[in-house]
């Protein structure tokens, strides 16, 4: 395994699980979840500062030693997303950005047009763009062609926990990609994370499924192993699916009774 690390934007990661921080009920739980998850990168949002409670989130992330991945959550236009990315660069001193440009409040699904526009601007401005996208293989290819460092198709809507609704599209995206593919949204449980890797994804990004689980730290550990399991299984080369049985015990040499 050591020789097959994940490389995004020129940087190497040992872990293939990326943790989103949204939804954690306390910083203590978040910190323990980060450790349990083994994640080496975690997202952070940019919001108006609250003088009464600032600072410690960054402290937690620094102590965990993870790379910050600011996001543009909540942006509906390329212009807002670009502005948010620029401010994130100022605030967190990183060129990395998880680009989200959504088209709808109810589904939080990406808007292809604004997303492509923002991606182009940000790549031109030197950002390392990890683009949250829907599961459209053609759109994913366009994002890659524009210079995104990773394409991050959804499995299902953000926070829905509905898993991977169209595994075929995710597999097609992974087959065609020359940059890392990160499954980003919809993971509900460990088997979803494993499946994402088996379909060909290079990593999994998830937040709600850990932070809002009944036991977030336990779920963080579950997700870590789920991602590892799926990654190993893909490399191990699974058996084909059959309609009927295929005996695992040979019938040769079976005893015969009178």
């Amino acid at each position, binding site marked *: 395994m050591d020789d097959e690390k994940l490389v995004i934007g020129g940087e190497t990661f040992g872990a293939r699980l990326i943790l*989103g921080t*949204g939804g954690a009920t306390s910083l203590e739980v978040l910190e323990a979840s980060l450790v349990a998850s083994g994640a080496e990168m975690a997202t*952070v949002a940019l*919001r*108006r*500062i609250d003088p009464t409670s*600032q600072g410690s*989130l960054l402290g937690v992330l620094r102590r965990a030693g993870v790379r910050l991945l600011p996001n543009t959550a909540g942006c509906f236009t390329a212009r807002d997303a670009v502005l948010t990315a620029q*401010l994130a660069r100022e605030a967190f001193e990183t060129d990395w950005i998880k680009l989200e440009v959504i088209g709808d409040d109810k589904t939080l699904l990406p808007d292809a047009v604004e997303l492509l526009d923002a991606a182009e601007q940000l790549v031109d401005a030197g950002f390392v763009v990890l683009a949250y996208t829907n599961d459209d293989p053609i759109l994913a290819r366009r994002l890659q062609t524009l210079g995104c460092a990773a394409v991050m198709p959804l499995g299902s809507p953000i926070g829905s926990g509905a898993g991977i609704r169209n595994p075929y599209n995710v597999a097609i995206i992974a087959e065609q990609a020359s940059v890392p593919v990160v499954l980003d949204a919809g993971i509900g449980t460990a088997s979803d994370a494993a499946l994402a890797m088996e379909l060909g994804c290079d990593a999994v990004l998830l937040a709600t499924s850990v932070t809002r689980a009944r036991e977030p730290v336990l779920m963080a550990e579950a997700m870590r192993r789920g991602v590892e399991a799926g990654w190993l299984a893909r490399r191990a080369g699974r058996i084909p699916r059959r309609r009927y049985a295929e005996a695992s015990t040979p019938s040769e040499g079976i005893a015969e009774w009178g």
Partner: protein
Amino acid sequence: MKVVVNGEARALHDASTVAELASALDAGPSGVAVAVNDEVIARSAWTTTALHEGDRVEVLGAMQGG
């Protein structure tokens, strides 16, 4: 003078700078970014950027998300 900081009206003494506002808001040495009238103000320019009557200022920091 009056400016709007993070959506709320705020009275500042004349000739206030971004740096002074940030300090008043307890913004730490890192992890905070400022935009004035939709323009990003680099931290290096905070002390030299004066605010003006009616400016819309966004002072943003890290929050859990994503």
